[in-house]
């Protein structure tokens, strides 16, 4: 029998242990997530200090400024278009490559490596190679077009194509990365489930649609979240390829934040834009977890 004093001490010890175990994670989360997020929120309602004027509280002025900012609207439109195209494209491509690589084909290891190479390359280096592909006149793409008797194009220099030229690079870059996750998921599918489906007379498409796809659901969810985050945090390719131009036609949210923070030194407005970015990412994860959680088959 424990006396009440001993019981209280034990409870206190357990609490202490719990806090001790939580402390590292708590410390890291506070330092690198919570504090920056709150600090950003604070800065977004404060004016940008300049040489003569110190910072002061401005309330929602930056958010009102955003609504009236045509570049902000264009950047959001671009980012939405980019997300709508790049996310399905890279997931579909990743799955296709994973299915191919999972099949028993000769030279499989080599092909896997080839598909994974873009992921290993630093994006800035890769984007510089693409910059050459896109060069009007003697770039690889134009030479190919000339070979087919088609006129060349100024891929990065025309508003109609600049954003899509960047999208292609980003999809090419991240599809290999997603492929690895799909490949791991595919290899975890028990062979007897597929064999059973075949014995029941299921066609290849039916096996894929009814057996494979549901079983790799958790992976798809994981990849989808990563792709959404990636779609709203693409920035490095823009530094190399277009600088957001021409006339903001390939400008995306994070690059616009960079421009405001480090080119215009408008830290208040940049903070307000960052709050929008955080809200989008938070919302996206919430929607995905809530809606797909039910339909995803965890094993």
């Amino acid at each position: 029998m424990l006396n009440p004093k001993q019981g209280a001490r034990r409870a206190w010890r357990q609490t202490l242990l719990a806090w001790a175990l939580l402390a590292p994670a708590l410390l890291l989360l506070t330092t690198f997530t919570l504090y920056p997020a709150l600090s950003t929120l604070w800065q977004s309602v404060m004016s940008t200090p300049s040489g003569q004027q110190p910072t002061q509280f401005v309330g929602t002025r930056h958010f009102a400024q955003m609504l009236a900012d045509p570049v902000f609207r264009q950047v959001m439109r671009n980012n939405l278009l980019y997300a709508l195209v790049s996310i399905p494209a890279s997931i579909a491509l990743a799955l296709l490559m994973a299915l191919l690589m999972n099949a028993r084909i000769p030279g499989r290891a080599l092909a896997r490596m080839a598909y994974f190479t873009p992921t290993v390359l630093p994006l800035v280096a890769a984007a510089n190679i693409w910059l050459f592909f896109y060069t009007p006149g003697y770039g690889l793409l134009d030479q190919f077009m000339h070979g087919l008797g088609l006129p060349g194009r100024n891929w990065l220099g025309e508003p109609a194509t600049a954003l899509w030229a960047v999208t292609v690079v980003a999809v090419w870059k991240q599809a290999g990365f997603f492929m690895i996750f799909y490949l791991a998921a595919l290899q975890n599918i028990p062979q007897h489930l597929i064999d059973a489906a075949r014995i029941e007379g299921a066609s290849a498409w039916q096996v894929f649609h009814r057996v494979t796809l549901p079983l790799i659901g958790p992976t798809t969810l994981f990849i989808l979240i990563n792709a959404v985050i990636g779609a709203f945090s693409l920035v490095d390719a823009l530094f190399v390829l277009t600088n957001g131009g021409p006339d903001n036609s390939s400008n995306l949210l994070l690059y616009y934040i960079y421009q405001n923070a480090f080119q215009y030194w408008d830290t208040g407005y940049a903070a307000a834009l960052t709050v929008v970015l955080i809200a989008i990412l938070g919302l996206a994860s919430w929607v995905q977890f809530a809606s797909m959680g039910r339909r995803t088959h965890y094993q």
Partner: protein
Amino acid sequence: MQRRDFLKASALPLFSASVLPSARAAQVIELPMYYPVAVGGPIAKILDGYAEQFHKANPDVVVKPIYTGSYQDTITKTLTALRSGGGSAPKMAVALAVDVFTLFDQGVLVSAEDLAGGDKGWLKSFYPAFLANSQVAGKTWSVPFQRSTPVLYWNKAAFKAVGLNPDKAPENWDEMRDMARRLTKLHNPVSPTDWGLQIPTSGFPYWLFQGLSIENGQARLASPDGKTTYFDAPETIGALDYLVKLSRTDKVMPEGIINWGTTPQDFFQHRCAMMWTTTGNLTNVKANAKFDFGVAMLPQHKRRGAPTGGGNLYVFNNTTEAERAAALRFIRWVTSPEMAADWGIQTGYVATSPAAWETPRLKEYVAGFPQAAVARDQLKYAEPELSTHDNQRVTKVFNDGLEAAITAQKTPAAALKEAQATAEGILRRYRNS
């Protein structure tokens, strides 16, 4: 401090000579200097060499050049480092002459007058065109260093091939367009070059464009106090009209945004017969063009003209009195006629003072390579480059407008009127102070 005390204490019994140098080493003034590389050529090697040479003559000062990317990156890194403070922040930097308002508004500069302690004669030794972008509130906030101005390069072999006089560059706008037409394959199948002309428009189209606007009679794109822009003046619109027509109507220049970085390459590869680009590329072109080429002033229209460009030396107010004196010593040394001549020859930048052009070395160089003097001769027609308060943002608005017209999203008039309205909105807050 602690470490030195420890050394002293441990060395005291020996009364060592080793203590003295270490104590003296602590008195050496270190000046970290951020700098960009904006043209081809071994800029980093040359600057490191200068720092070493200066240190040999001035053992008490060590200038530490730190490469910080493009001009854009350099200003970003400089302001970030100055804001966070600390020992690693730069004491000096080479930054765009036009960023003077940005740095001034951030309150980080020391004026050249304060540095020189009243010696005004020294500043008068520079070309006035190069000093024009340095003046704010009656003082000079930077010293001309790697200055440039755009010029026209032409491929003499291509001119000859289409029956043009290879030694004569276009004199005016009409001539440039007509010559470019003969040098464009589309209009003249025997032309060895695809296009007659390339005026690069990527990244910072405003700069070369200002050449056109000056020639069309709009000398400045902003008022000297940096508070009013003239983006929608009829002359500015007319200049953009001419530029857009070169590619869209006359079809003597590629459509869309023309890349700044690949244009010299296009010139070497016979993709264009004439190009506008900075004199800073002169050494690069001299080394890489496999044909005879000429360098000319930009063609005139209502008048002759070109903007100045390039970077100046800035000293920051995180410096002590001793550091300021040391920085001044370095600046006066590196901009002295002999050094300015050397810098000009090694890079293609325009030597910044008339005295530099009188040095035997530069005279000899010009005699053997007369193309080098074109930029200098053009200086008397030069106008200060676009520079305003909140310069990066205002310039971006203008660039966006130019790009919208160049890519045929908007007419020149509509694009520039919009840019002017946006710039007005940004600059309004600077007018009351």
